Every structure is written in C-alpha cells, then in structure tokens.
C-alpha cells in the first residue's frame, strides 16, 4: 500500500481586487500521485506550476477542493486525535527558505527539539540526547546546538531544518526546493546526505525542484507538472518526453563551456 497518495486532487484559489468579483484561479487539476514507503520521487516543473500547492495539500496544511489525500489508505481529512498526531509525525517537510523556517530567537537545540516536544513522549534529557544525535547525523557539531540561527550560514541552517524534519523519525520528508538557495558544493553535500539517510533509515522523499540535474542524482522516478497537472512520468530523467519536460531539459545549463 502506498504511504501517502493524492487521488484526483483539485485546488483553486480566489484572487482579485478588493471590489471586483473574485476570480477563482485553478492551480491543481485532477492530480494523482502515490508514494510508496522508502521511495524517492522527484516532482519537477517551472515556477507557478502547482508543485508547492500539491506539497501543502499532502502535508494537510490546506484542504483540496476536489479529490482526497490519503495516508495509509485513510483520508487525512477524517483523521483526528491520536491518528492526526501519527500523521504529523510521519510526514515532515523542509522548505527552500531556511532562514524563514526557524525562529531567530530559538537556539538550534530548541528548534530541532520542537517536534520531539510536541510529537513524542521523550523527556527533557532524552530529547537533549536525541538532538545531539540528530545534529551529528546531518554533519553538524553537538556544540552547534547552543547557536542561534543568526550565527549560522545558509547551508548549516538548512541542515538544521533537515535535522528537525528527521527528529520524529518520519516516514516521508517533503523537500520543497530545499537546496535551491545553496551553492553547488553545499547542494551536493546535502544531496549526498539525503541519499545516505535514505539508505540508513529508509525514509521516503518527495523532492520538489525545477532543476533536472538534482533530480537525476537522487530520485527513483520523476514526475513533471505543468499548469496544475502531472503531464509526464518516468523512471529516469532521460525517459521524459512531454514538451514541458523537454523545455526543462533544454534549459539545463551546460556541463562545459560552450562558447568558442
């Protein structure tokens, strides 16, 4: 059974000027997506194609207008109480903007420990030990726990966000352009870290990006979105054939200098 699935999901937002009649803008139409345990799925597309909206729906942050999101076969809209907590624990996310994703007044230790406080029964000391373990896992130092976000670089902070996502031992992590703001050397380090975590912990990933190069390196299969629909799917980037996929492939920057 799939871990999480979107079934014929649709979503539209209302927008428009204050006094004008609101115009519904459809951002997702009839999207089907299923992620199996331990799988790494790449979700590709240009900005504004609906990738992030789909991620928000999968996380239960917003409700679909049509269709449903299921977690282990159950509609997440109907999950309450303890089941809700399990769902929250099982699905975590990492955003692109790591600086905006942490409270600037909280130390790294408090930031990483927060999901443990809410989603697990660990006591203070056990949490402290787990945070130290997580920091080491993502290649940070135990002493970094005392730092504030302002004292860390973008790459370090993104690792903090990944450590926080890993804290409650989730089964799926949604990475929404999680490495796009980092420089290439750091991007590569984070990708290697994710592959390693996957081997170690068997976590599934939904890797959202517009960069085919990154998907090629990490994902088991890739999906391409355009204007709110999934228009292409393949095992590898090379197997994509839709015009939207070709546009993405054509835009990939060259490996070596092209000028004469």
């Amino acid at each position, binding site marked *: 059974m799939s871990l999480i699935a979107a079934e014929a999901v649709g979503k539209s937002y209302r927008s428009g000027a204050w006094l004008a009649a609101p115009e519904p803008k459809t951002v997702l139409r009839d999207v089907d997506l299923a992620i199996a345990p331990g799988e790494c799925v790449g979700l590709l597309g240009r900005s504004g194609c609906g990738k992030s909206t789909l991620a928000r729906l999968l996380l239960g942050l917003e409700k679909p207008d049509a269709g449903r999101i299921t977690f282990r076969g159950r509609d997440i809209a109907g999950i309450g109480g303890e089941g809700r907590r399990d769902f929250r624990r099982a699905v975590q996310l990492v955003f692109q903007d790591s600086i905006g994703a942490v409270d600037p007044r909280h130390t790294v230790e408090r930031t990483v420990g927060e999901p443990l406080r809410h989603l697990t029964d660990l006591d203070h000391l056990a949490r402290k030990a787990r945070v130290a373990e997580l920091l080491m896992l993502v290649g940070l130092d135990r002493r970094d726990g005392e730092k504030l976000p302002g004292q860390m*670089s973008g790459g370090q902070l993104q690792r903090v966000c990944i450590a926080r996502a890993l804290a409650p031992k989730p089964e799926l992590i949604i990475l929404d352009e999680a490495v796009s703001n980092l420089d*290439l050397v*750091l991007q590569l380090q984070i990708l290697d870290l994710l592959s390693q975590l996957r081997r170690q912990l068997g976590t599934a990933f939904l890797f959202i990006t517009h*960069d085919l*190069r990154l998907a090629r390196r990490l994902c088991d299969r890739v999906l391409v979105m355009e204007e709110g629909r999934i228009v292409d799917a393949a095992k590898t980037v090379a197997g994509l054939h839709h015009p939207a996929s070709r*546009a993405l492939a054509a835009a990939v920057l060259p490996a070596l200098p092209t000028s004469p």
Partner: protein
Amino acid sequence: MGRMLTIEGLRLATRRHGAPVELVRGLDLSVSAGAVTALVGASGCGKSLTCLGIQDCLPSGVTRLAGRVAVDGQVKAGLELRGRLVATVMQNPRSAFNPVLSMRAHALETLKAAGRQGPDSDKRILAAFAEAGLDEPARILALYPFQMSGGMLQRVMIALALLSEAPFLIADEPTTDLDLVLQAHVLDLIERLVARHGLGVLLITHDMGVVARAARTVAVMESGQIVERGDVHDIFTEPRHAATQALVAAHLALYPEEQVA
C-alpha cells in the same frame, strides 16, 4: 570600443568585537567591454560585497580600507559609477523595486538620473522593454511590482540598465531566484546585449553551469581573495587551485558521465 573597468587593491573590512576583520583582502579585477567576466566562489567568500564595494554602497559597518576603481584608466568615485557607468542587476528583483511605483515611474527615474529625460522618454522606455524581451511593453508600463512575476521584474531590471546606457553591468546572481527556463532566457538576454551593445558584464554567481553558459573569463574567489583566474575553458579543464577544483568537481558531479567527457 575596448573600454575597461578596473578594480585595484580593493580591501573591505568590518569590526567584530572591536577588532577589524578584513572581508575582501586586496582584490584586483578587470572587466572588459563586450565580454562577460564571471566572479565565482562559495557563499560567504565576499563576491557580493565586492560588487557593492566597487560602487561604494556598502552596508553599514563595512568600510573600504583601500582600493581604486577606474574606467579606461581614470579613477572614478562611487557616485560617478553608480547608474551612470555601471548598472546593477541583483539577485532578488522584488526587493529592487519600489512597491508603490509603476514600471513607468521606475524607468523615468532612471532616465532622469542619466539626464536623458525628454519628450521621447516613453518611446525609449518601450524600446528598452521590448529589447529586454518583455511582451506587450505598453501594458507593462502601468504595472506595479506585485502584479509581475520574478522573471518579468528581472527583465525590467535589465531594461533599466539599458536605459541608463551604462557601458558596464554588474549582475549579482541574476538568475538564482528564477526557474531553469527563465534562467536560460535571462542569460540569453545578457549574451545578446553583450554582443549588440558591447556591454561589459561582471557576472557574480556560484553556479558553474551559468559560468559555462555565459562567461569568457573567470575569476575564482575564496575568503576575500581571488585565488585563480583564467579563460573559461582552462578553468573547466585544468583548474589549479583547490577552491576551483571543488567548484568544478561539484558542478560536473551533477551531470551524467557522457556529457562531461
């Protein structure tokens, strides 16, 4: 042609706990007209600060200890450079625009600063917008930043640079916030302007793919210093310094082997 922007011995410093810390440590760089010079390095190496230092608009707390910026051998102050000899395109176009001014107001401001406001202002603005690859330039005149996408704003940024008729352009990570397809469009546009107007571009980036695509010469920066410089082909095929090797290796690792050979 053959104009040249030269930076000599640029040193920028801040103070931390009372002690001076040098962030850019004696940087020499030249940007020639009609070509793209790339300044690359890992984040935090001082690339962006260099770009601000050249134009003398450093953030508070950072001071210029030494350094001269010259155009065609004549030393220029920051005020003479900014917007007149050197136009700038930044990473985040949304924060580069005034949210309560229309695109037309921004363009008129640029023309006024360059002393070229006149009865034909609107015509020139439309021509620059069209040249920057904006569809329906007349409609865009009336738009405000919140009504436009990041890619459109970045094109308007470049159109403003065109309007200023500055011979040099500093582009600080101009494509980082855009998706790959838009990135390709913006790089195409910069290339076209270099070829057509003989613009001298200093392209600041961390993405070696952008360098491979657009640059002719490359300077690699690490910890506030240029550690290697050379022709773009040499940088990719025979990187000498460890920092360059790391950048090139990380970049090539993203490609399948058959493309790298």
